[in-house]
């Protein structure tokens, strides 16, 4: 005769009620898909923001009479300054090409310009630990061949602050969503406990301990969670493929980049499903397996 361990008992009790499994897995899959969509959106937005915000920068505008070769020499000189991570000379033609790329479908707006208004410049990326950028800017401004130093882009700084606040809000919302998934899991486990109430009471009467009775429900919750995570990942992948149109957005961003399916998402959802399965399992079984509460 065959005896089973906790996983075997969990699989058997799952097999005995396939309808219940269907309800539990589909409910969890919806909850995890919402969580996954949220995670994917946060990850993609974070990456998009990373492309926009490349850290502290300075734009050194060169005098109009400075030739490209001299501009490159200046860039090399600037790159050696303390606090400067890198320096690159960008002439006005290259700057215009970039600007057109960033404007995307709206680039034809630039066709009406008679002359290129963009200056030749050296783009500096500063090290994040630089203590006093204004002093560095003042020093550079006095260097030969430098016409102006654009020290900051206030709208980007505001965007950075807004993104930081948004990030904190996103974490709080993520925690709430995770708690909702735990709640859904605990309710499905509670339903499973209710369906098998008579059997559990019988086990309690013959001396089964909490672990013996609880074990299969925890394993069941985890297995259901993993199945639901796979289903949710598949659902989200399909949805992202459908929604990620090739249309370009302002600043050179593409919808396909914002709505890209993160490759780590199935793993993250699986991990969440395991943790929420264990937490929800404990909460769902809870007091309903109290040894005194028998028929």
């Amino acid at each position, binding site marked *: 005769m065959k005896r089973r361990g906790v996983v075997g008992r969990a699989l058997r009790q799952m097999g005995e009620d396939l309808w219940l499994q269907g309800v539990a897995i589909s409910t969890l899959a919806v909850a995890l898909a919402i969580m996954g969509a949220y995670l994917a959106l946060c990850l993609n937005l974070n990456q998009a923001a990373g492309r926009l915000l490349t850290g502290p920068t300075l734009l050194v505008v060169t005098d109009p009479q400075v030739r490209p070769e001299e501009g490159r020499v200046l860039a090399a000189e600037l790159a050696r300054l303390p606090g400067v991570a890198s320096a690159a000379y960008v002439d006005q033609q290259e700057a215009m090409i970039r600007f057109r790329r960033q404007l995307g479908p709206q680039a034809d707006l630039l066709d009406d310009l008679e002359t290129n208004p963009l200056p030749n410049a050296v783009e500096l990326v500063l090290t994040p630990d630089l203590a006093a950028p204004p002093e560095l800017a003042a020093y550079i401004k006095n260097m030969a061949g430098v016409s102006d130093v654009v020290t900051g882009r206030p709208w980007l700084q505001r965007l950075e602050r807004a993104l930081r606040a948004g990030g904190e809000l996103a974490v709080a919302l993520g925690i709430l969503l995770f708690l909702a998934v735990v709640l859904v899991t605990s309710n499905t486990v509670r339903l499973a406990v209710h369906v098998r109430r008579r059997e559990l009471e*019988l086990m309690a009467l*013959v001396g089964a301990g909490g672990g013996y009775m609880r074990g299969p429900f925890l394993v069941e919750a985890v297995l259901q969670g993993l199945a639901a995570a796979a289903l949710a990942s598949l659902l989200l992948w399909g949805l992202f493929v459908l929604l990620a149109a090739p249309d370009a957005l302002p600043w050179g961003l593409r919808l396909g980049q914002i709505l890209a399916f993160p490759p780590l998402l199935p793993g993250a959802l699986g991990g969440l499903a395991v943790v929420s399965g264990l937490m929800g399992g404990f909460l769902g079984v809870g007091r309903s397996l109290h*040894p005194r509460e028998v028929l």
Partner: protein
Amino acid sequence: MILLEEVSKVYPHREEPALKGVSLQVAPGEFVYLTGPSGAGKTTLLRLLYGAELPSKGRVVVGGTDLGRLAPRHLPLLRRRLGLVFQDFRLMPRRSVFENVALSLEVAGTDRRIVERRVEEVLEQVKLSRLAKSPADTLSGGEQQRVALARALAPGPDLILADEPTGNLDPENALAMMRLLVGDYVGGATVLVATHDPTLLSLVRGGRVVHLERGRLEEAS
């Protein structure tokens, strides 16, 4: 084996107490009939003995353990020393006879080979070996009650509590069941059989009879 001292049990929303000042002492190995009409408090008394209820007053001691002081987490350890038989059999209907009997050993973490050997042994005793693989719900009432008894006997309990074990059986099966309970199979365990049917006492003679009437205990013989 069993000691009840001035035990009373009052249920909320019920005027009359289920048990009133019940005192009883049962020695190890003793066979006791607990008789009385329906509603006399027999089931309540048994529930107190296997820890499904706590007394409102008094002390319940089983095998030296004061159940009033026993932490719920230790209750399973006590129940593994008991064998419980109910009128409605309380089997897992879709599981095989073997699985039903093995349950009382598995919950205690008994080794697989010992479980197999012991289950075969008790199924032989209750004459159900040939049905070991049959699902419990395909058996007759008499057979199901014998499975329940086998489950109770499998761990070799110190105390067997049977609540109306013949209530759902015809006279022939009732007699067979009682013979099993008073036979050598119980291995010297203390047996307490609750019944409202006085004819049961004449079926199998021997053993002490205690009578419950409206929650009060009277020693009959």
